[in-house]
């Protein structure tokens, strides 16, 4: 079933009796060619591109809960490609290009809104760093624009320009950045994959792998054994737990990141703003709520909630930048479990077990990567070779000293 304006009008005139479920609820088959573990954004995108772009068939996505109930539903919905390092920037720019054509591609309204993202500058050193970053972005075909303090003031007059510690001295803007309706990303990919024949199996938890002679033959699940030619794991947040069932230890720690939504306001914040010096970022959703977040709580956690000390820290950062925030009531907050890798960059690679592939370690940048992550993982699963934009995301980079340390924090996952 295709969605269109004509279809909406037709259904409106006939009592909305023609709408059908957006995806099926199939029983698992005994064997699939490819199984993706994890029905989040990355897993569903992988299945969709496997079927659509790489012409694979007989694919299943296995999810322990319901699709979109993990990190794709627990983030701050920002898309951008303002990275700097060679291993990262082409990948995130590829992702942003896929976002730009996503809704037409899978015929689903994901509310992709390129309202722009602005990284604020508070010191001369930060300006130098952002000029360098902007140049790196443009060299990779992304857009970047350096704004003076006056230009920032014209767009965001309500920010605190005269803060004694962090006066605003300008900003690095990426006009093509913005926000997307996160749940609709999961639903759109699920619907797209399902219409191409992918089985989406919910409420089916993977409890182990069947591995014989170094070959992965399938997965043990709460609904019985399911055979597979290849298994791809995309369960960010729970990567260590799932891969431990295959006997692997990963360069990953799980940490919790909190995010917040205020009561609904009239339009006040045109784009996404980030306050790197204090670590706070904020955008306004289409419903009017201010959506914001800051640092991770900083210690290993699988609890999908954080502690009050970080709430206080984030809101202090927000108040320093955006004093009007003090008059706004906080509506709700949530915590997502982040796969913090040792250098702050993701891993998309084969494992030493034949037929077992891994996608994880997204730290807290996984949402913006969803389309490219799915595409590159599908490329790896189909061809056994990394996609050119994800060639640096290998397991062996830690052993070989080729880390992609975007923030320069070393092997300290709680600092990335």
């Amino acid at each position, binding site marked *: 079933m295709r969605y269109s304006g004509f279809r909406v009008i037709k259904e409106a005139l006939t009592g909305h009796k023609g709408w059908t479920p957006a995806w099926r609820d199939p029983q698992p088959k005994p064997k699939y060619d490819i199984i993706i573990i994890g029905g989040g954004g990355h897993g569903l995108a992988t299945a969709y591109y496997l079927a659509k772009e790489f012409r694979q068939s007989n694919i299943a996505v296995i999810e322990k809960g319901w699709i979109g109930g993990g990190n794709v539903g627990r983030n701050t919905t920002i898309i951008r490609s303002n990275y700097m390092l060679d291993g990262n920037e082409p990948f995130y720019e590829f992702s942003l290009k896929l976002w730009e054509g996503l809704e037409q591609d899978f015929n689903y309204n994901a509310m992709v809104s390129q309202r722009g993202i602005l990284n604020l500058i508070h010191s001369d050193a930060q300006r130098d760093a952002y000029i360098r970053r902007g140049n790196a972005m443009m060299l990779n075909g992304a857009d970047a624009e350096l704004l003076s303090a006056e230009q920032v003031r014209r767009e965001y007059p309500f920010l605190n320009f005269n803060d004694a510690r962090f006066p605003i001295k300008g900003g690095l803007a990426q006009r093509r950045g913005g926000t997307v309706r996160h749940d609709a990303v999961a639903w759109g990919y699920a619907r797209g994959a399902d219409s191409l024949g992918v089985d989406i199996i919910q409420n089916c938890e993977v409890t182990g792998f069947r591995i014989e002679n170094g070959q992965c033959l399938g997965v043990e699940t709460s609904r019985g054994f399911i055979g597979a030619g290849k298994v791809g794991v995309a369960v960010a947040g729970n990567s*260590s737990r799932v891969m431990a069932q295959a006997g692997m230890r990963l360069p990953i720690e799980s940490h919790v990141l909190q995010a917040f939504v205020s009561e609904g306001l009239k339009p006040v914040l045109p784009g996404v703003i980030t306050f790197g010096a204090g670590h706070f970022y904020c955008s306004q959703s289409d419903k009017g709520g201010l959506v914001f977040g800051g640092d991770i709580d900083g210690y290993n*956690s699988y*609890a999908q909630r954080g*502690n009050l000390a970080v709430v206080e820290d984030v809101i202090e950062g927000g108040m320093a930048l955006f004093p009007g925030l003090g008059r706004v009531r906080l509506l709700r907050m949530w915590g997502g479990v982040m796969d913090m890798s040792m250098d702050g960059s993701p891993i998309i690679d084969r494992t030493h077990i034949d037929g077992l592939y891994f996608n994880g370690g997204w730290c807290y940048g996984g949402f913006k990567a969803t389309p490219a992550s799915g595409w590159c993982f599908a490329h790896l699963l189909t061809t056994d070779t990394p996609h050119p934009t994800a060639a640096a995301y290998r397991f062996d980079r830690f*052993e070989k000293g080729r880390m992609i340390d975007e923030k320069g924090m070393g092997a300290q996952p709680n600092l990335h």
Partner: protein
Amino acid sequence: MIINHPLLGPCDAQEFTYLGDARLIDRPDGMAAGAEAAFFDYDYLRDNPAGLHRELWFHEQGDRSWLVVTRNTVTHEITNVELARDVARNSGRSA
């Protein structure tokens, strides 16, 4: 979170900085055979359990002691706190 310091009593976790898995006490011998592989494992690989986790916390804004805290990573419940010094001594790490 409140960390029950063995010497100072209950302290707010905000007084501490976090380092990670308490296995970081067991630094490999850099001169031994296979040190390269041992250091890769030590520096980068983690068990990362969902449940009880022994981890290192530094009382930076307090007495600057290192603690080994046993905490449940699902519930944030802290069940045991030891001085890292005692843990290291008991494992034969230092005099």
